[in-house]
């Protein structure tokens, strides 16, 4: 620890005095961007966790083989050229020249293989992909060869995945860490370096520009294209309090505020020095999840009756507020994305208590109370829960709302036990649009064993989802998308609560923001 | 005449809700140079209010001077401003108080407390101040003043503390010293030396002293002139010999008559089987811990004694002699470390509370402080019947008995439902005696039972104790520090010092032929032996 003696203090105060007077002007002004991220970076291993903040951290310091552009098609990033064999079973990727890790070592095929393998153990899409991979090896220093057992339509979509878990490329020594243990070496090859000794968990993360990074020549487009570090240092400062965060931005103590509460937007927008805008074109999709295993929601008609009561406008107005930040969307795929459609969406678009009441009356619902888990530390979900509670009550359900924090909810939602023994009937969440862009999303699973909490069972749905990975053309994919959506609505898998957008706010001296569902910090500058 | 202080028609009013209108009314007293004026009276006589008012340190929120003047050094003290008054205090007039422990600031070295007064009133430098303080300490005959100078009050004995108070009061050689019961809280041997000291200094300096006391023995030893006060009024004042020899006022006569004689009356010896017998009782306080063993006090060291029915056994000794410890062991409020306590031949020394319970009625106690001996939240009746009802007596029977007892102890039975605060101190002590008697005990312990009472009341309670002893054939263990009281009431006496019995004998023997030097010193120290 530091020695706090008189000398240090005196020296510090002298320095302070001189700084305060402004006598000591640094010769070179370091360009620093102060950012309030949307969450606290608790965890530095983006493969180990799916937390969005860890994913964003990953994009700071790592690079990917492929990356999504703003039309959501994968573009080469670390890969220079790649080829597919005639039968579609052998894929060869050649890495770009000049790829370097932060420690100076070159990126090799070995690193890529190890990184993909670790990712394949944790990520859902990765697991699917590795089911068909027979071999994955570095055929030369900069070439990776992948052999498949059958043709697979989502190879590039998988390894170019934009959101969690993103297959970031780490050095081999790091990627060899057990997939269920966290890495402790944070060497990447991305445009920024993580400053380990300046990290204060829960408060501050510091990144500095990596001078050895060679950006691609293409212009930046979402996650793809040239990643240029235009500032010397990026400091993430986590603010637990939204009001304080807003004040700090308005006072100029902060440059960029990633996710202000939408309700604060008018206050921020009123400040001429601040820009408020929506950065994520897909936004987030509200999700009301039923537990298909327990009564009353083990009955499809009861689920569908409940869905009829859900009026998206009410949810969005209550949770988000300002209509410029939300819109209704009755497709399971985010409206505005290629697979969005309106098959079977009447049920969700009903939004009528009376209709719900009538539908419920036709079922065998016996007054079994519905237990809704309300995560009180997440305002949007808390509001969703309350709106659902009121809607269901009005529709004739018995409802119990149980307040808890999000972390309790995440552990409890995994329980398949009856309500009395820790189980549950409903909870709310949201997916970022990019996570539910196609039928492969785990949110749409119909397999109770491998599927997501809530455990819907529908073989037809699974069959349809299975087809998707083999589909190659957009038309085919759209067709499968419609089929999947039809099944999802038919079995009342979950309530879709509409699409909402969280704005970002930043001081006008910040330039170069990239439109994307994921927050990137390259190409951004502070003037 | 050489009047130093003249109080003329001084009247001090009490707050409007008090039970009487004036604290003192129309008091006229004067103190001359080179004399000790004793103001004597019982509690509530207004003697302390008079002293505090002269000093200007009475509670100004409660007490207001409504009439009269206090002439001192050419000024009327009732009219001068606080700043000017402050210059008198400590310099021209000084005061010493009853309880030297609380009157000294516990967190300040005593030397500092003396030099402080020099700092306020003189221009002396620090070293001068110190030498003057040391000189003052030598004057009051404090041993090793250099060392004591750097001591805190709690490190000194009671006598030393009072000497410090006196040194502090006299360091600036004031003309007037006001002494408010300065020896009441001290042991009798210490009292004698302090009285001697005050007298000596007064003579040497030619100072005027206003001496407040309730003890006619002290008056007889020290006073030149005496003022007797009752209920805030001066009832009589004269030269000391005149007052003692020819008191005019009834109240004065009563006060003087109430002082017990040092000569014990002849008593016949009692020759019956003892009901209470303590053998080699040991009791020490303080824990011997792993870390230190030095804080253990031997409060009782091989104490043996016995009391027979109809006998009053006195335990006398100064504070800390262990006499109360013995009493509390005897009634098993505390458990002795070793030794036996035979009550009617049953050893109760080590009995647990449950086994003890049935012997509780055999042995009862009356405590010193009548204000704390009764639960203020319970009626006196409830307090008296509590014991009998614990032993299964019906309420009706207990109440009937209680009313009888109240009559016996001289209280009206119709006050049965009153609360303790509605009684005077003497009446409360009677209630406590009734409560003890309600148990029909064979042994009664009186632990300083009359020490807190005014002399007049003391005499009545002593008489009551004597009567009930005879009436109920009680064995009485009478604990007191007051040699006069002991002389009058006890058949036999045990003298204790530092936890051990130093002498035992019949009262007559002890008072006429004390063997132990400590007993002799005690007896010689009792004040007022010239007259009483």
């Amino acid at each position: 620890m530091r020695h706090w003696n008189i000398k240090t203090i005196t020296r510090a105060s002298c320095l302070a005095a001189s700084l305060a007077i402004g006598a000591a002007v640094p010769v070179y002004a370091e360009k620093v961007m102060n950012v309030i991220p949307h969450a606290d970076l608790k965890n530095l291993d983006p493969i180990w966790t799916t937390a969005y903040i860890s994913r964003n951290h990953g994009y700071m310091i790592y690079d990917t083989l492929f990356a999504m552009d703003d039309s959501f098609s994968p573009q080469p990033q670390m890969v220079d050229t790649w080829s597919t064999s005639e039968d579609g079973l052998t894929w060869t990727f050649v890495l770009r020249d000049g790829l370097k890790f932060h420690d100076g070592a070159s990126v090799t095929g070995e690193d890529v293989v190890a990184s993909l393998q670790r990712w394949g153990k944790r990520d859902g899409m990765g697991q699917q992909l590795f089911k068909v991979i027979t071999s994955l090896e570095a055929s030369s220093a900069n070439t990776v060869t992948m052999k498949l057992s059958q043709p697979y339509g989502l190879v590039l979509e998988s390894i170019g995945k934009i959101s969690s878990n993103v297959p970031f490329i780490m050095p081999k020594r790091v990627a060899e860490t057990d997939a269920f243990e966290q890495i402790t070496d944070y060497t990447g090859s991305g445009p920024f370096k993580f400053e380990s000794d300046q990290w204060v968990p829960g408060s501050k993360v510091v990144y500095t520009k990596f001078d050895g990074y060679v950006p691609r020549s293409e212009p930046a487009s979402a996650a793809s294209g040239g990643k240029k570090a235009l500032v010397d240092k990026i400091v993430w400062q986590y603010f637990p309090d939204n009001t304080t965060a807003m004040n700090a931005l308005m006072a100029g103590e902060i440059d960029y505020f990633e996710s202000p509460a939408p309700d604060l937007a008018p206050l921020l927008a009123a400040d001429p020095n601040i820009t408020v805008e929506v950065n994520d074109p897909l936004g987030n999709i509200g999700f009301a999840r039923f537990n298909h295993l327990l009564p009353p929601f083990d009955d499809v008609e009861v689920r569908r009756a409940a869905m009829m009561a859900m009026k998206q406008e009410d949810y969005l107005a209550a949770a988000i507020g300002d209509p410029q930040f939300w819109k209704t969307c009755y497709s399971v795929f985010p409206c505005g994305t290629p697979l969005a459609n309106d098959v079977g969406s009447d049920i969700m678009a009903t939004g009528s208590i009376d209709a719900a009441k009538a539908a419920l009356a036709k079922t065998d619902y016996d007054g079994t109370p519905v237990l809704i888990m309300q995560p009180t530390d997440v305002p949007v979900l808390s509001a969703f829960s309350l709106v659902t509670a009121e809607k269901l009550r009005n529709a004739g359900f018995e409802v119990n709302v149980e307040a808890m924090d999000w972390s309790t909810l995440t552990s409890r939602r995994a329980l398949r036990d009856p309500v009395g023994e820790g189980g549950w009937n409903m909870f709310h969440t949201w997916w970022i649009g990019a996570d539910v862009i196609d039928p492969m999303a785990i949110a749409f699973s119909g397999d109770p064993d491998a599927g997501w909490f809530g455990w819907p069972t529908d073989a037809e749905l699974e069959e349809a989802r299975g087809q998707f990975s083999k589909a190659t053309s957009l038309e085919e994919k759209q067709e499968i998308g419609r089929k999947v959506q039809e099944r999802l609505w038919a079995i009342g898998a979950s309530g879709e609560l509409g699409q909402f957008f969280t704005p970002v706010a930043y001081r006008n001296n910040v330039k170069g923001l990239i439109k994307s569902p994921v927050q990137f910090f390259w190409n951004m500058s502070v003037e | 005449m050489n009047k130093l202080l003249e109080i003329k028609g001084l009247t001090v009013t009490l707050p409007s809700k008090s039970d009487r209108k004036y604290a003192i009314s129309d008091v006229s007293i004067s103190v001359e140079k080179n004399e000790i004026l004793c103001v004597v009276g019982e509690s509530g006589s207004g003697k302390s209010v008079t002293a505090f008012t002269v000093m200007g340190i009475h509670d100004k929120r409660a007490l207001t001077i409504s009439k009269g003047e206090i002439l001192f050094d050419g000024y009327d003290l009732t009219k001068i401003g606080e700043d000017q008054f402050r210059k008198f205090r400590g310099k021209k007039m000084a005061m010493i108080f009853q309880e030297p422990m609380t009157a000294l600031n516990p967190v300040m070295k005593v030397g500092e407390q003396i030099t402080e007064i020099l700092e306020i009133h003189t221009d002396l430098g620090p070293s001068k101040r110190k030498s003057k303080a040391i000189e003052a300490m030598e004057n009051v005959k404090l041993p090793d003043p250099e060392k004591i100078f750097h001591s805190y009050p709690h490190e000194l004995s009671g006598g030393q503390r009072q000497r410090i108070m006196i040194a502090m009061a006299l360091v600036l050689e004031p003309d007037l010293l006001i002494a408010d019961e300065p020896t009441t809280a001290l042991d009798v041997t210490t009292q004698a030396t302090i009285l001697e000291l005050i007298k000596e200094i007064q003579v040497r300096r030619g100072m005027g002293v206003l001496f407040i006391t309730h003890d006619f023995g002290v008056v007889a030893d020290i006073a030149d002139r005496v003022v007797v006060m009752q209920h805030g009024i001066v009832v009589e004042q004269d030269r000391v010999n005149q007052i003692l020899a020819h008191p005019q006022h009834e109240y004065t006569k009563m006060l003087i008559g109430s002082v017990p004689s040092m000569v014990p009356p002849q008593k016949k010896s009692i020759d019956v089987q003892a009901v209470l017998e303590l053998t080699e009782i040991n009791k020490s306080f303080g824990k011997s811990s792993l870390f230190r063993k030095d804080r253990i006090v031997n409060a009782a060291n091989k104490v043996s004694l016995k009391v027979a029915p109809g006998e009053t056994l006195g335990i006398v000794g100064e504070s800390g002699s262990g006499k109360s410890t013995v009493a509390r062991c005897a009634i098993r409020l505390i458990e002795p470390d070793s030794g036996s306590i035979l009550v009617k031949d049953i050893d109760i020394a080590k009995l647990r509370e449950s086994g003890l319970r049935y012997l509780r009625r055999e042995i009862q106690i009356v405590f010193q402080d009548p204000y704390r001996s009764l639960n203020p939240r319970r009626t006196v009746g409830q307090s008296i019947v509590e014991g009998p009802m614990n032993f299964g007596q019906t309420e009706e029977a207990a109440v009937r008995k209680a009313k009888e007892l109240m009559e016996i102890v001289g209280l009206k039975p119709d006050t049965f439902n009153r609360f303790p605060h509605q009684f005077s101190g003497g009446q409360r002590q009677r209630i406590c005696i009734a409560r003890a008697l309600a148990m029909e005990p064979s042994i009664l312990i009186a632990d300083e039972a009359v020490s807190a009472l005014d002399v007049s009341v003391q005499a009545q309670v002593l008489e009551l104790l004597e009567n009930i002893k005879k009436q109920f054939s009680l064995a009485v263990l009478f604990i007191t520090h007051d040699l006069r009281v002991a002389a009058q009431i006890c058949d036999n006496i045990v003298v204790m010092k530092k936890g051990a019995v130093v002498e035992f004998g019949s009262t007559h023997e002890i008072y006429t032929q004390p063997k132990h030097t400590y007993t002799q010193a005690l007896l010689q120290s009792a004040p007022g032996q010239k007259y009483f």
Partner: protein
Amino acid sequence: MENHVESSAFDIAWKNRNVSIGLSVLLIIIVLALIGPIFTKDPFSLSPMSRLKPPGDFGLFGTDQLGRDVFSRVVNGGRISLTVGLSVAVFAILVGTILGLIAGYVRALDSIIMRVMDGLMAIPAILLAIAMISLSGASLATVIAAIVIPEVPRVVRLVRSVVLTVREEPYVEAAISVGTPVHLIMHRHILPNTIAALIVQATYICGSAMLTEAILGFLGAGIPPEIPSWGNIMSEGRTFFQLTPWIIFFPGIALAVTVLSVNIVGDGLRDTLDPRIARSLK
């Protein structure tokens, strides 16, 4: 007759101006909270389309972020906050008194109880409460329990010290020597002496419990936010502090006035019931 001394003390206490003003204000607040449901809208009813409206057309105190009526939430919230304050005070005093009496009277258990209490005292109250609530799930009952537990040691210490002092009083010794059994000594002689101090302590506990509840709400570990306690209303509204100050202002005023009254009553009672301080104020 038993209560003679207390009742006269409370007569005096009532004559203390602070006590009478404080109690009157409290009485009004309690009555309002109790009859609140009669004259207010449903505090739970959502109306997302009229959210964050200023006081006026959409209710006396405006609406909150879910369009609920702030006035009815504040009025009904009084009931929750007062319930928290009162229950915490009652339970803390009850548990603390029992433990304190045992510790003060049963030598063998004294050191065990006191070590446990020392341990509890050493854990910062807010942290303990946050941990307990967020780990065991938020409900009115857990919040009350979580606030009670850190308060208990203070009461235990208070009661124990009174017991230790009072049991040395001559009248207790007299009661022992007339063979009064332990439970009656407790009941007749010791307990009544603790009452004045406990009542004063209870007022302070009550006040601080209401504040703690609010702070727990702020930290996200309070009563389920749906339930309108003053603390919850404020903590939910805090994001909008600069946008819609009324959401935080009205419950804030209500809470401050209530706690202030409770504390003023406590101070007044202390001054009248503690003779030493009372004397110097005369």
